[in-house]
């Protein structure tokens, strides 16, 4: 008979035994070793029926398709831009996906995005080698001007955003700041200097207390104590709701792929230097 060795929402470290027997199933962040289910990383346990999994508490952002991230332009290339993603990998923003405008051959690309520019962009593809393609086509995707940037633990982003963007829209509304939260843990805040500083404080507080239940109430009273009024009728705007797709940000460390999508096989492309060659091949085959 199987036995659970931990409770729900326990902090476990790698190598800790979570359950014995075949009655329980190993979920994300765990593995089975003979009769036992063992923790494969640091995190909080989550027991759902027979499945035991681990919600990660630490770690770098892992790029996922369809995530909205805030990146920094680090290089301007011939056919696009290289973007820092606050993960282990840099991303590529190609001309095709960068803007709706027509870009002439030989144009100065820094006119669109230059070094150090912050952009809100969407990940359109992640290959098996973690080559990332970004796009700027979509609602709310834009270059950011001014404001300030803070980095938070990417695993706490879902909490900062809240259900359907409720948390971030509450802070936005009360402080009058413009806030964009990237799935990669980069948060951009812009407003009056005083409000901006306070919004930073609030976001940091949400990050610190992300695990507490009833956090929305706490944040609300925190805002009110400091002289901000929270409008109960405030609804998340278009760009907040954008992150609200529950399939998109789950924060449980599981990587989900749409049906039929495979990460291995398929075309392998090496950033900038592959495309001209592809074109040559096409030309040859047409002949």
């Amino acid at each position, binding site marked *: 008979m199987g036995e659970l060795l931990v409770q729900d929402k326990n902090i476990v470290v*790698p*190598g800790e035994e979570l359950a014995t027997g075949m009655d329980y199933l190993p979920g994300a962040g765990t*593995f089975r070793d003979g009769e036992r289910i063992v923790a*494969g990383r640091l995190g909080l346990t989550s027991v759902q029926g027979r499945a035991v999994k681990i919600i990660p508490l630490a770690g770098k952002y892992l790029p996922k398709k369809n995530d909205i991230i805030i990146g920094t332009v680090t290089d301007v290339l011939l056919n696009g831009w290289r973007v820092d993603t606050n993960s282990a990998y840099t991303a590529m923003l190609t001309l095709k996906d960068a803007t709706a405008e027509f870009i002439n051959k030989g144009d100065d690309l820094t006119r669109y995005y230059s070094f150090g520019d912050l952009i809100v962009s969407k990940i359109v593809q992640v290959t*098996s080698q973690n080559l990332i393609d970004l796009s700027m086509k979509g609602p709310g995707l834009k270059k950011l001007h001014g404001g300030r940037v803070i980095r938070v633990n990417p695993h706490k982003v879902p909490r900062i955003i809240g259900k359907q963007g409720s948390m971030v829209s509450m802070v936005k509304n009360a402080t009058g700041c413009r806030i964009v939260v990237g799935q990669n843990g980069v948060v951009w805040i812009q407003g009056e200097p005083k409000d901006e500083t306070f919004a930073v404080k609030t976001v940091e507080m949400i990050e*610190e207390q992300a695990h507490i239940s009833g956090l929305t109430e706490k944040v609300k009273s925190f805002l009110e104590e400091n002289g901000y009024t929270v409008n109960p009728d405030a609804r998340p705007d278009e760009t907040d709701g954008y992150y609200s797709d529950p399939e998109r940000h789950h924060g449980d460390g599981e990587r989900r792929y749409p049906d039929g999508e495979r990460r291995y096989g398929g075309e392998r492309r090496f950033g900038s230097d592959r495309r001209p060659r592809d074109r040559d091949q096409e030309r040859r085959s047409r002949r």
Partner: protein
Amino acid sequence: MAYEQRFDGRGMTELRPFKAKAGIVRRADGSAMFQIGDTVAYAAVYGPRDLFPRFLQDPSRGILRCHYNMMPFSGSGERIRPGQNRRAKEISMVTEKALLPVLDLSEYPNAVVDVFIELPQTDAGSRCAGICAASIALADAGLSMKDMVSAIAIGRIEDKIVVDVNKKEEDYEGGMADIPIAMLPRTGELTLLQMDGELSKKDLARAIEAAKGAVKEIKEVQRQALKDKYEGDRK
């Protein structure tokens, strides 16, 4: 004279007092301190991150790089020349090999995880302390690991097997072997086994058996260090 009593009065299988703390370097992705007796090791983990030069990249998995360094004022009072030396290179290499079996870096092709181990104070057993600290730091960095790694130096002094040798014992001239051992505490698999001195096959088996008990104690402290950090976050 036979070696009946340890120089510092410990029992034969008794460790020096030891403690650990996770998350001490704020800028790092993961970090830890591990102190055993007068040996103190700090470890900081950066990454996974981009790896350059490119020829070092491995397209099938991320790589691990360890840097072991004794600070100039650590040790017995003789100034240690700063920078790389043959010994530090060797220890960096064995540390890497001791930690790699538990790490799963397949999710991070072409990337690197850097582990920096600094020792401000040493009294033998520094590579073991370094491995213990690094293992906590790697878990703190949120990497996939199948177990913690705990390490301890076992010694043979004359006919006695002693656990956790200090510098005085290491320098004992009446027949001494020093055996640093790193182990996965859950399964008892070895990831580091070195020897300095002479040792019979039988004594080696005794040494490994002695390490098993010590490693369990260390693992508990490592686990508690991580829990303290994240429980602290919860309050």
